[in-house]
C-alpha cells in the first residue's frame, strides 16, 4: 500500500482480486479474483516515479477504460504525491496527457458545450459513456470493473476540460447527478520519457492519429512565418526600390545594319562601348524583321585590355499562321537579354550572325541597342514567390491538422 489511510480500493497485481477498506477499519474482498491487468505489462509499472513540473509522482494504480459506443480504449495511471495529492496520466493511442481534478466550477454561461475555465474557452469535442474494463493497484475511491461513467470532453489545445458523471447508468446526464471536473494537459512523448527516465522505445505503443487536444505546432508557427514573410518581402521591396533608384540606365550603342550572307559566322565589329560605373549589368536588345524565319546572334563584349569579356546569345524567331483553331503566332522579332556584370572599361562589341535568309542568299537587317546599368524587376518577383512557399505550406498543414483533429468528433466545426 502506497497511500495508506487515503486509498480505499486495492487491486491485487497477481490475482486481480479487489480489497476495500472499511469505514471503521478492517477490509473486505469486494470483488473476487478475476484475470485483470498484467501489472508487469504496464508502460509505467506500479511504484515507478516520474517528475512533471518539478513534482515527483508515483504510479499507484492503473485503470483501463473503454468508450462504450466508439469502442476505443485508454489507460489512466493514478499518480500520487503525499504533498500534492493525485494526478492521472492518460495514455491513449500512444498519446499522453496529465489530468488534475478541479474543485472549482466551470463557467458554463448557459451552455454546457462551451465552458469557460480559468479564462480559456473550451469547445465540446466528445460526449460518451466509458466503462472500466481492467484495474490494478490502489485507488482513493471504490473501483468497480464494469462501472460506467458519463463524460464530456471539451478542448482548447493543449488543454481539455472533462466533465464526468460517475455511476452513470442512464442515457442522459441527470442535472441532479454528482459531477467531477478535471483539467487535462497534453504531454509530448519526449516529456513523458524524460519524466520517467525511460527511452522512447519503452513506450511500446506508437503514436497514431491526431489526439483531440494535441497542440497544433503548425498553427503556432504559421503567424510567425507570415510575419517573417512580410518583413522579408518589405525588406526586399525597399532594397529593390533603392537599387532601381541608383540605376543610371544609360544608353551605349545603337546600330542598324544589314548583315550579308558572306558575313555568316564571321565576327563583325559593331562598335565600342565604355562602361563608367565600377560594376553594372548590360542589356542587349536585338531586332530583326523575321517572318516565319529565324536569326541567331552571338554577342561578345571584350575589353580592350583583353582581360574581361561577356557573351550573350540571342535567337530571334517569329512564326505565324492559321489552322483549324484560327490564327497563331510564336516568338517575336525582338529579343532582349541581360548580361554582366562588367566593370568600368571600354569594350569592343562583336557579333556573329546566322540567319535562315542566308540560305536563300539574302541579307538580314539587324538593329542592336545596348544599355548599361538597367533596373531588373524579375528577381524581386522570384524572391517573393520563393519566400511565400514556407508560410503557405505551413498554413495548409495547419489546416489539415485541424481537420484531422476534428475528424473523429460529432461536434466538428468542419461538418456542414
Amino acid at each position: 500500500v502506497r497511500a495508506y489511510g487515503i486509498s480505499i480500493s486495492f487491486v491485487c497485481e497477481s490475482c486481480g482480486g479487489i480489497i476495500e477498506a472499511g469505514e471503521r477499519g478492517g477490509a473486505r474482498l469486494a470483488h473476487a479474483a478475476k484475470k485483470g491487468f498484467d501489472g508487469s505489462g504496464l508502460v509505467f509499472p506500479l511504484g515507478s516515479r516520474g517528475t512533471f513540473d518539478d513534482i515527483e509522482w508515483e504510479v499507484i494504480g492503473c485503470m483501463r477504460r473503454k468508450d462504450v459506443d466508439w469502442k476505443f480504449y485508454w489507460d489512466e495511471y493514478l499518480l500520487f504525491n503525499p504533498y500534492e495529492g493525485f494526478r492521472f496520466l492518460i495514455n491513449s493511442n500512444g498519446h499522453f496527457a496529465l489530468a488534475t481534478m478541479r474543485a472549482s466550477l466551470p463557467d458554463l454561461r448557459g451552455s454546457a458545450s462551451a465552458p469557460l475555465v480559468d479564462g480559456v474557452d473550451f469547445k465540446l469535442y466528445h460526449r460518451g459513456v466509458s466503462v472500466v474494463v481492467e484495474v490494478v493497484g490502489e485507488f482513493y475511491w471504490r473501483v468497480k470493473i464494469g462501472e460506467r461513467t458519463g463524460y464530456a470532453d471539451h478542448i482548447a489545445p493543449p488543454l481539455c476540460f472533462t466533465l464526468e458523471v460517475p455511476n452513470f447508468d442512464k442515457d442522459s446526464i441527470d442535472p441532479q447527478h454528482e459531477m467531477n471536473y478535471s483539467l487535462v494537459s497534453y504531454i509530448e512523448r519526449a516529456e513523458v520519457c524524460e519524466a520517467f527516465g525511460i527511452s522512447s522505445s519503452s513506450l511500446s505503443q506508437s503514436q497514431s492519429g491526431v489526439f483531440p487536444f494535441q497542440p497544433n505546432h503548425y498553427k503556432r508557427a504559421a503567424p510567425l512565418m507570415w510575419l517573417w514573410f512580410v518583413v522579408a518581402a518589405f525588406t526586399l521591396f525597399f532594397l529593390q526600390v533603392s537599387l532601381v533608384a541608383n540605376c543610371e540606365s544609360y544608353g551605349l550603342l545603337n546600330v542598324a545594319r544589314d548583315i550579308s550572307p558572306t558575313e555568316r559566322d564571321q565576327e563583325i565589329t559593331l562598335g565600342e562601348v565604355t562602361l563608367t560605373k565600377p560594376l553594372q549589368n548590360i542589356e542587349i536588345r536585338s531586332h530583326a524583321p523575321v517572318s516565319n524565319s529565324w536569326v541567331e546572334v552571338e554577342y561578345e563584349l571584350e575589353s580592350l585590355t583583353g582581360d574581361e569579356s561577356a557573351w550573350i546569345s540571342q535567337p530571334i524567331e517569329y512564326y505565324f499562321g492559321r489552322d483549324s483553331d484560327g490564327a497563331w503566332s510564336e516568338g517575336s522579332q525582338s529579343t532582349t537579354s541581360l548580361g554582366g556584370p562588367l566593370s568600368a572599361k571600354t569594350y569592343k562589341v562583336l557579333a556573329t550572325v546566322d540567319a535562315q535568309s542566308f540560305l536563300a542568299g539574302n541579307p538580314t537587317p539587324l538593329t542592336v541597342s545596348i544599355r548599361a546599368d538597367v533596373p531588373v524587376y524579375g528577381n524581386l518577383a522570384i524572391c517573393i514567390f520563393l519566400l511565400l512557399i514556407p508560410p503557405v505550406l505551413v498554413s495548409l498543414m495547419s489546416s489539415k491538422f485541424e481537420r484531422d483533429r476534428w475528424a473523429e468528433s460529432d461536434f466538428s466545426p468542419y461538418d456542414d
Partner: protein
Amino acid sequence: LIRKDDGYDTTGHTSLVADDYTPYQIGSEGWYQGVHFGVIGRVRMAWSDGFWNEWHLFFDDGRFGWLAEAQGQLAILFEERSPEFLDYFREAMKFSKSKGCFLNTEIFIEQIEYICRDTKVASCIALEGELPQFIRQHEQRVCVDMSSLMSRCVTAEIDPVCGSLRVFTGEYVSFKDLRTYNLRELEGWRPR
C-alpha cells in the same frame, strides 16, 4: 478533556488516530494570506467511500480555522458564527429537513454563487490535539460541500439528530500556497 470555567473534565477516550500518509501533524506551521498559523488539533473523518482530515489551525491574529485535507485537495475554512448568516444560509438552502440531498443547490454568499457538489453522511473516527468544541467519536454529520466559479468554497455540517447547522467558508489552496514547515517526515518523499 473538556475545558470548563473551573478546570478540565474528562469525557472519555478516543481511538488513536489511525496512521495515514499525510504530511501534516500537530505542530506543523504555515502561512495563509500573509498570516502565520500553527496546527493544534485534528479530526479524522470517514464516510462510506473514504476518509479525510480536518486540521484545526490557530492563526497569529487570534483566529481559529481549519485545513481540510481530502485526497490531496486542500482548503482553508473559517466557521461562520453570526446568527444572521446561519439564518440566511438555512433559508437559502431550504433546510427543512436535517438530512437530505442538496446536490446542485445554489446559494449566493457575498455576490458569489456556490453550487453544491457533494453531500455525504460522515462520522468522526478519531481526534487529537486541541479542538474548538466537544466532538463525540462516531457521531454522524451530513456534510455538504459547495464550490464556486473561483476557488472559494463552503462546507456545511448538519447534525442529523438535532438539525443544528455549522457553516464554514474559505477557499481551495495548494500545498505550495501554504508554505508549511515542521511537516511529518515521509520516507522516500520530500516536499517541493
